[in-house]
């Protein structure tokens, strides 16, 4: 069945709600109007106002409500719309949600899923376009998930909701209409496993979300020049799947990472550090990070397009790396 990412996410929510009465959905305008990005459309009609909740514009209260209800055994799915707004409830996410299990000495599970829309390319400018997943990398206690296609969106969201730990679930706002195959009876997908999308010999390209399509496009073009690229979709930002990526690098001896984020404190920097430590002898050259510029996200079309990495920048990086 061909569905959009939006449809896959909507179905994952519906299936989780149908399967477990402890699951509920909460966020701004997620009920009566199906969400700003229309991911929760129809859920109110199907599951009723006892399962699907609209809230005031109060992100701290939304996340706190999720935490407190999870402490009481529920399984909340909270939406905070644009991932940039994670900043207004950052304390709840990083100082409370991420640490409660630990500070209590393991007295409690905390099965909270927080969904949010990250990413640029839509002319939403500096406060509505960020890849906020990078804000959470130094916070032990959080799992970070970032799917790039309908099947992963479905499977990972099911897994996130079923997970006993807090999961931040990032949906790229530019990909909601992207289409792909979804099985008739799709299964959850394990959090923490990257996916090899295209096998290759000469270099490993690891990308996430919108950059995956760019990586595949670049691989296609490089193949015409006889360069064989292995493309890996990261899928989970924390914990990183060092095994899959390391094994690939051991074969290709070259690593390129692609992200629509600046380099500082990013998952790419984290991954480079780990792979260099684990697979140093396999590397024929320094890993290359194809990243966004070290600036906020600009509004204007040409500026934003140039800010974002694309297939061209990946092709150049690969050529630079392999012809060095």
């Amino acid at each position: 069945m061909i569905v959009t990412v939006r449809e896959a996410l909507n179905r994952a929510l519906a299936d989780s709600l149908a399967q477990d009465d402890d699951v509920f959905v909460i966020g701004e305008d997620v009920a009566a109007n199906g969400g700003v990005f229309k991911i929760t459309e129809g859920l109110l009609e199907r599951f009723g106002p006892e399962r699907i909740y609209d809230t005031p514009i109060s992100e701290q209260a939304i996340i706190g409500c999720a935490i407190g209800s999870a402490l009481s055994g529920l399984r909340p799915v909270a939406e905070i719309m644009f991932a940039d707004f994670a900043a207004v409830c950052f304390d709840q996410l990083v100082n409370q949600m991420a640490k409660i299990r630990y500070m209590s000495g393991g007295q409690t599970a905390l099965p909270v899923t927080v969904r949010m829309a990250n990413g640029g390319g839509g002319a939403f400018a500096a406060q509505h376009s960020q890849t906020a997943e990078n804000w959470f990398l130094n916070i032990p206690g959080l799992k970070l998930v970032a799917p790039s296609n309908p099947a992963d969106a479905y499977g990972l969201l099911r897994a996130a909701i079923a997970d006993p730990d807090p999961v931040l679930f990032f949906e790229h706002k530019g990909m909601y209409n992207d289409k792909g195959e979804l099985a008739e009876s799709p299964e959850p997908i394990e959090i923490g496993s990257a996916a090899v999308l295209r096998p290759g010999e000469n270099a490993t390209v690891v990308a996430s979300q919108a950059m995956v399509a760019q990586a595949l496009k670049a691989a296609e073009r490089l193949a015409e020049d006889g360069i064989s690229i292995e493309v890996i979709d990261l899928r989970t930002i924390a914990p990183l799947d060092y095994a899959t990526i390391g094994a690939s690098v051991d074969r290709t001896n070259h690593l390129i990472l692609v992200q629509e984020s600046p380099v500082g404190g990013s998952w790419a920097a984290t991954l480079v550090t780990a792979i260099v430590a684990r697979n140093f002898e396999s590397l024929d050259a320094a890993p290359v990070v194809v990243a966004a510029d070290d600036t906020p996200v600009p509004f204007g079309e040409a500026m934003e397009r140039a800010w974002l990495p694309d297939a061209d920048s990946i092709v150049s990086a690969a050529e630079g790396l392999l012809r060095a």
Partner: protein
Amino acid sequence: MSESSTARASKPSADTDLLGAMLEIRFFEDHCHELFSAGLLRGATHLGQGQEAVSVGFCRALADGDTMTCTYRGHAATLAMGAPIDRAFGEMLGRQGGLCDGKGGSMHLTDVAVGALGAFGVVGAHLPISVGAGFAAKYRGSGAVNVCFFGDGATNIGAFHESLNFASIMKLPVIFVCENNLYGEYSPIAHTTPIERLADRAASYGMHGERIDGNEVHDVLDAARRLVARAREGGGPALVEAMTYRQKGHARSDPGAYRPAGELEEWLERDPILLLERRMLESGSSQSELDSIRAEVAGEVEAALREAQSWPEPPADARLQDVAA
């Protein structure tokens, strides 16, 4: 300081001036709506048709050196402060010469030169910043006042609470203007807020609060003059709830399906421009005078748009500037 900003400070607020200012904003936003529908305007576009009297009434009560902050729905307030129309269009279109040289776009119109300190995309985020503008005025003894525009829904976010408390305990010259347009996105304010009069929240901060008719520009102007003068003399902040209505959807192509039948029509009857025009007719203006104001402003706005459309996009490399000094 631009021409219109100087004008704003010195000119008597004749009805023609008020009408012109509201029409300028209305036509600006109508153009934005069309540009968006035609695919010529990218990104988010939060329009405020129907709310012009709040911005115009408050900003007309300000003097040079006063400042203003507003939201993503901030075209009206920024223009009312005197930002040049062509440069505002330029920013919407992402052009070089736009107010922010194309870096900010619709949600972040800023013109510091006229006191428009910024438009902010995170609900509530600019209330603390207005506190700072008020703080600086008091620190310097400049007598300046800051006006902070925000929506009804924003009164439920933490930054609202911290800002009003802080401004009150420090007695800062900040007028917090809540434009109660009855909705936050698609949610009626009554669904998210357990009290009816948001102005009553001022009591939590020992602050003066009042509710006004935000569609009667003279009501707005009267309240604004009174409260701005009070703040300027050290009387401290105030919370004003201006009742109004946004005639378009929340953003972009939101059709506003959540509105009860007849609500929009009722409010269109109370359109602030219509109300002022009616009043002007009653006090002796002729329909042809009004028509010619309308035509003149329409022409100016149209010309400003054409001007802005003639500007180039900034070069892609411009993105690398303005991060730091």
